[in-house]
Protein backbone atom coordinates (compact mmCIF):
# COMPACT_ATOMS: atom_id res chain seq x y z
CA UNK A 1 0.00 0.00 0.00
CA UNK A 2 1.28 3.49 -0.84
CA UNK A 3 1.70 6.06 1.89
CA UNK A 4 -1.51 7.98 2.65
CA UNK A 5 -0.89 11.57 1.61
CA UNK A 6 -3.34 12.99 4.16
CA UNK A 7 -1.95 11.24 7.22
CA UNK A 8 1.76 10.65 6.47
CA UNK A 9 3.99 11.91 9.29
CA UNK A 10 7.55 11.85 10.57
CA UNK A 11 8.44 8.43 11.96
CA UNK A 12 6.08 6.46 9.73
CA UNK A 13 7.59 3.27 8.32
CA UNK A 14 7.56 2.63 4.57
CA UNK A 15 6.08 -0.80 3.79
CA UNK A 16 9.02 -3.21 3.77
CA UNK A 17 10.06 -5.26 0.74
CA UNK A 18 11.80 -8.66 0.87
CA UNK A 19 14.34 -9.45 -1.88
CA UNK A 20 16.67 -12.37 -2.44
CA UNK A 21 18.42 -14.45 -1.25
CA UNK A 22 20.65 -13.02 -3.99
CA UNK A 23 22.09 -15.64 -6.35
CA UNK A 24 25.06 -15.50 -8.70
CA UNK A 25 22.52 -15.84 -11.53
CA UNK A 26 20.86 -12.62 -10.32
CA UNK A 27 24.23 -10.88 -10.75
CA UNK A 28 24.69 -12.39 -14.23
CA UNK A 29 21.30 -11.00 -15.19
CA UNK A 30 21.83 -7.59 -13.64
CA UNK A 31 25.28 -6.81 -15.09
CA UNK A 32 24.31 -6.98 -18.79
CA UNK A 33 20.91 -5.34 -18.17
CA UNK A 34 22.62 -2.41 -16.43
CA UNK A 35 25.39 -2.14 -19.01
CA UNK A 36 27.98 -2.98 -16.36
CA UNK A 37 30.63 -5.34 -17.76
CA UNK A 38 32.75 -5.48 -14.56
CA UNK A 39 33.76 -9.16 -14.07
CA UNK A 40 34.19 -8.58 -10.32
CA UNK A 41 30.44 -9.31 -10.04
CA UNK A 42 30.41 -12.26 -12.45
CA UNK A 43 33.67 -14.20 -12.28
CA UNK A 44 34.84 -15.69 -8.95
CA UNK A 45 38.43 -16.09 -10.12
CA UNK A 46 38.61 -12.46 -11.21
CA UNK A 47 37.09 -11.31 -7.89
CA UNK A 48 39.71 -13.38 -5.99
CA UNK A 49 42.51 -11.85 -8.06
CA UNK A 50 41.22 -8.43 -6.94
CA UNK A 51 41.42 -9.49 -3.28
CA UNK A 52 37.81 -10.51 -2.59
CA UNK A 53 36.64 -13.96 -1.46
CA UNK A 54 34.42 -14.17 -4.54
CA UNK A 55 31.87 -12.25 -6.58
CA UNK A 56 29.62 -9.75 -4.84
CA UNK A 57 26.46 -7.87 -5.72
CA UNK A 58 26.41 -4.62 -7.67
CA UNK A 59 25.63 -1.74 -5.34
CA UNK A 60 23.11 -0.61 -7.92
CA UNK A 61 21.22 -3.91 -7.61
CA UNK A 62 20.45 -3.07 -3.98
CA UNK A 63 19.61 0.51 -4.96
CA UNK A 64 17.23 -0.93 -7.55
CA UNK A 65 15.48 -2.89 -4.79
CA UNK A 66 15.17 0.31 -2.77
CA UNK A 67 13.73 1.97 -5.89
CA UNK A 68 10.98 -0.66 -5.97
CA UNK A 69 10.27 0.08 -2.30
CA UNK A 70 10.06 3.82 -3.08
CA UNK A 71 7.72 3.44 -6.06
CA UNK A 72 5.42 1.25 -3.96
CA UNK A 73 5.47 3.78 -1.12
CA UNK A 74 4.94 6.75 -3.43
CA UNK A 75 2.36 4.99 -5.59
CA UNK A 76 3.99 5.90 -8.90
CA UNK A 77 7.42 5.99 -10.59
CA UNK A 78 6.81 9.74 -11.06
CA UNK A 79 6.63 10.24 -7.28
CA UNK A 80 10.39 9.76 -6.85
CA UNK A 81 12.10 13.19 -6.96
CA UNK A 82 15.45 12.53 -5.29
CA UNK A 83 17.14 9.25 -4.46
CA UNK A 84 20.54 8.72 -2.95
CA UNK A 85 22.35 5.58 -1.78
CA UNK A 86 25.62 4.91 -0.04
CA UNK A 87 27.14 1.47 -0.58
CA UNK A 88 28.56 1.11 2.90
CA UNK A 89 29.12 -2.65 3.03
CA UNK A 90 29.37 -5.38 0.43
CA UNK A 91 26.27 -7.49 -0.30
CA UNK A 92 27.15 -11.15 -0.99
CA UNK A 93 25.41 -13.98 -2.84
CA UNK A 94 23.17 -15.70 -0.29
CA UNK A 95 22.20 -12.46 1.43
CA UNK A 96 18.44 -12.07 1.85
CA UNK A 97 17.53 -8.42 2.07
CA UNK A 98 14.79 -6.60 3.90
CA UNK A 99 14.40 -3.19 2.30
CA UNK A 100 13.00 -0.61 4.69
CA UNK A 101 12.55 3.06 5.22
CA UNK A 102 11.19 5.67 7.56
CA UNK A 103 9.75 9.15 7.03
CA UNK A 104 12.07 11.93 8.27
CA UNK A 105 10.28 15.10 7.07
CA UNK A 106 6.99 16.16 5.48
CA UNK A 107 6.38 19.53 3.86
CA UNK A 108 4.02 20.93 1.21
CA UNK A 109 5.11 22.49 -2.04
CA UNK A 110 2.21 23.70 -4.18
CA UNK A 111 0.20 20.76 -5.46
CA UNK A 112 2.42 18.12 -3.87
CA UNK A 113 3.38 16.94 -0.40
CA UNK A 114 7.11 16.22 -0.25
CA UNK A 115 8.08 13.29 1.95
CA UNK A 116 11.74 12.79 2.89
CA UNK A 117 12.79 9.26 3.88
CA UNK A 118 15.75 7.34 5.21
CA UNK A 119 16.26 3.99 3.47
CA UNK A 120 18.27 0.85 4.07
CA UNK A 121 18.79 -2.77 3.13
CA UNK A 122 19.32 -5.22 5.99
CA UNK A 123 20.43 -8.86 5.82
CA UNK A 124 19.02 -11.88 7.62
CA UNK A 125 21.61 -11.27 10.35
CA UNK A 126 20.49 -7.68 10.84
CA UNK A 127 23.45 -6.06 9.12
CA UNK A 128 22.72 -2.86 7.19
CA UNK A 129 24.47 -2.92 3.82
CA UNK A 130 23.15 0.03 1.83
CA UNK A 131 21.78 3.20 3.35
CA UNK A 132 20.14 6.07 1.56
CA UNK A 133 17.71 8.94 1.47
CA UNK A 134 14.93 9.93 -0.89
CA UNK A 135 12.26 12.53 -1.49
CA UNK A 136 8.82 11.42 -2.68
CA UNK A 137 6.29 13.87 -4.10
CA UNK A 138 2.71 12.79 -3.33
CA UNK A 139 -0.15 14.61 -5.11
CA UNK A 140 -2.29 16.47 -2.53
CA UNK A 141 -5.84 15.32 -2.90
Amino acid at each position, binding site marked *: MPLDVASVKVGDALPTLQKGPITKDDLKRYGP*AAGDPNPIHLDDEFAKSAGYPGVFAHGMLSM*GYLGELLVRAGGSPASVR*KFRARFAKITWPGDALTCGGTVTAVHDDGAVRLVDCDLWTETQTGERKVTGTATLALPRA
Partner: protein
Amino acid sequence: MIGRVLSTGSATVTADHVAAFADALGDQDPRYRGPHAVAPPTYPVAFMVQAMSGGMDTFQELGLNFMTLVHGEQEFEYRRPVQVGETLELTGRIADIYEKQSSSGGVLDFVVLETEAKDGTGATVFFSRNVLISRRA
Protein backbone atom coordinates in the same frame (compact mmCIF):
# COMPACT_ATOMS: atom_id res chain seq x y z
CA MET B 1 40.44 18.40 -14.50
CA ILE B 2 37.38 19.21 -12.39
CA GLY B 3 34.62 20.26 -14.78
CA ARG B 4 36.12 18.34 -17.69
CA VAL B 5 33.43 16.91 -19.97
CA LEU B 6 34.12 13.20 -20.45
CA SER B 7 31.57 12.45 -23.09
CA THR B 8 28.44 13.50 -24.84
CA GLY B 9 26.10 11.21 -26.69
CA SER B 10 22.57 10.08 -27.09
CA ALA B 11 20.69 6.96 -26.06
CA THR B 12 17.31 5.71 -27.21
CA VAL B 13 15.21 3.94 -24.59
CA THR B 14 13.68 0.68 -25.82
CA ALA B 15 10.83 -1.32 -24.31
CA ASP B 16 12.92 -4.50 -24.37
CA HIS B 17 15.78 -2.92 -22.43
CA VAL B 18 13.52 -1.37 -19.79
CA ALA B 19 11.70 -4.69 -19.33
CA ALA B 20 15.01 -6.58 -19.09
CA PHE B 21 16.23 -4.10 -16.47
CA ALA B 22 13.04 -4.51 -14.41
CA ASP B 23 13.33 -8.31 -14.78
CA ALA B 24 16.91 -8.16 -13.48
CA LEU B 25 15.61 -6.39 -10.36
CA GLY B 26 12.81 -8.95 -9.97
CA ASP B 27 10.36 -6.03 -10.19
CA GLN B 28 7.04 -7.16 -11.70
CA ASP B 29 5.49 -3.67 -11.96
CA PRO B 30 3.42 -3.61 -15.21
CA ARG B 31 4.26 0.10 -15.67
CA TYR B 32 7.76 -1.00 -16.76
CA ARG B 33 6.43 -3.22 -19.58
CA GLY B 34 5.23 -2.37 -23.07
CA PRO B 35 5.53 0.35 -25.70
CA HIS B 36 4.25 3.11 -23.37
CA ALA B 37 6.25 2.04 -20.32
CA VAL B 38 8.35 4.24 -18.07
CA ALA B 39 11.65 3.07 -16.57
CA PRO B 40 12.43 2.18 -12.94
CA PRO B 41 14.18 4.92 -10.91
CA THR B 42 17.65 3.36 -11.14
CA TYR B 43 17.43 2.65 -14.88
CA PRO B 44 19.63 5.68 -15.76
CA VAL B 45 22.62 3.70 -14.45
CA ALA B 46 22.44 1.81 -17.75
CA PHE B 47 23.68 5.01 -19.44
CA MET B 48 26.58 5.59 -17.06
CA VAL B 49 29.08 3.29 -18.68
CA GLN B 50 28.42 5.04 -21.97
CA ALA B 51 28.64 8.44 -20.31
CA MET B 52 31.98 7.45 -18.76
CA SER B 53 33.39 5.71 -21.83
CA GLY B 54 35.11 8.86 -23.00
CA GLY B 55 36.79 9.02 -19.63
CA MET B 56 39.19 6.08 -19.75
CA ASP B 57 42.17 8.27 -20.68
CA THR B 58 41.24 10.70 -17.94
CA PHE B 59 41.07 7.88 -15.39
CA GLN B 60 44.53 6.73 -16.42
CA GLU B 61 45.78 10.30 -16.23
CA LEU B 62 44.41 10.42 -12.68
CA GLY B 63 46.28 7.21 -11.88
CA LEU B 64 43.14 5.42 -10.72
CA ASN B 65 43.52 1.76 -9.89
CA PHE B 66 40.92 -0.08 -11.98
CA MET B 67 41.29 -3.36 -10.08
CA THR B 68 40.01 -1.76 -6.90
CA LEU B 69 37.56 0.77 -8.32
CA VAL B 70 34.25 0.61 -6.45
CA HIS B 71 30.98 2.50 -6.59
CA GLY B 72 30.74 4.31 -3.27
CA GLU B 73 27.64 6.45 -3.63
CA GLN B 74 24.94 7.18 -6.17
CA GLU B 75 22.49 10.04 -6.32
CA PHE B 76 19.66 10.83 -8.74
CA GLU B 77 17.51 13.88 -9.12
CA TYR B 78 14.49 13.40 -11.36
CA ARG B 79 12.26 15.84 -13.21
CA ARG B 80 10.15 12.94 -14.52
CA PRO B 81 10.56 9.20 -15.25
CA VAL B 82 12.49 8.10 -18.33
CA GLN B 83 10.03 6.97 -21.06
CA VAL B 84 10.25 4.15 -23.56
CA GLY B 85 10.73 5.44 -27.11
CA GLU B 86 12.49 8.68 -26.23
CA THR B 87 16.05 9.65 -27.10
CA LEU B 88 18.07 11.31 -24.35
CA GLU B 89 21.07 13.57 -24.82
CA LEU B 90 23.68 12.75 -22.16
CA THR B 91 26.58 14.82 -20.91
CA GLY B 92 29.04 13.34 -18.43
CA ARG B 93 31.58 15.45 -16.56
CA ILE B 94 33.96 15.26 -13.62
CA ALA B 95 32.33 17.18 -10.78
CA ASP B 96 34.98 16.67 -8.09
CA ILE B 97 38.18 14.84 -7.21
CA TYR B 98 39.55 14.40 -3.70
CA GLU B 99 41.47 11.94 -1.54
CA LYS B 100 41.06 10.55 1.97
CA GLN B 101 43.10 8.36 4.29
CA SER B 102 41.54 4.91 4.62
CA SER B 103 41.13 3.29 8.04
CA SER B 104 43.88 0.82 7.09
CA GLY B 105 46.33 3.64 6.42
CA GLY B 106 46.23 3.69 2.62
CA VAL B 107 45.05 6.49 0.39
CA LEU B 108 41.63 6.43 -1.26
CA ASP B 109 40.98 8.50 -4.38
CA PHE B 110 37.44 9.76 -4.89
CA VAL B 111 36.11 10.86 -8.28
CA VAL B 112 32.63 12.36 -8.56
CA LEU B 113 31.03 12.00 -11.98
CA GLU B 114 27.93 13.91 -12.97
CA THR B 115 25.63 13.05 -15.85
CA GLU B 116 22.78 15.19 -17.11
CA ALA B 117 20.11 13.82 -19.45
CA LYS B 118 17.95 16.08 -21.61
CA ASP B 119 15.02 15.15 -23.82
CA GLY B 120 14.32 16.19 -27.40
CA THR B 121 12.87 19.52 -26.25
CA GLY B 122 16.04 20.34 -24.29
CA ALA B 123 14.32 19.82 -20.94
CA THR B 124 16.32 18.06 -18.21
CA VAL B 125 15.00 14.59 -17.36
CA PHE B 126 17.45 13.62 -14.62
CA PHE B 127 20.80 14.36 -13.04
CA SER B 128 22.98 11.54 -11.83
CA ARG B 129 25.95 11.85 -9.53
CA ASN B 130 28.15 8.87 -8.78
CA VAL B 131 31.12 8.63 -6.48
CA LEU B 132 33.83 6.17 -7.52
CA ILE B 133 36.46 5.14 -5.00
CA SER B 134 39.85 3.74 -5.92
CA ARG B 135 42.41 2.35 -3.44
CA ARG B 136 45.78 3.75 -4.38
CA ALA B 137 48.16 0.96 -5.35
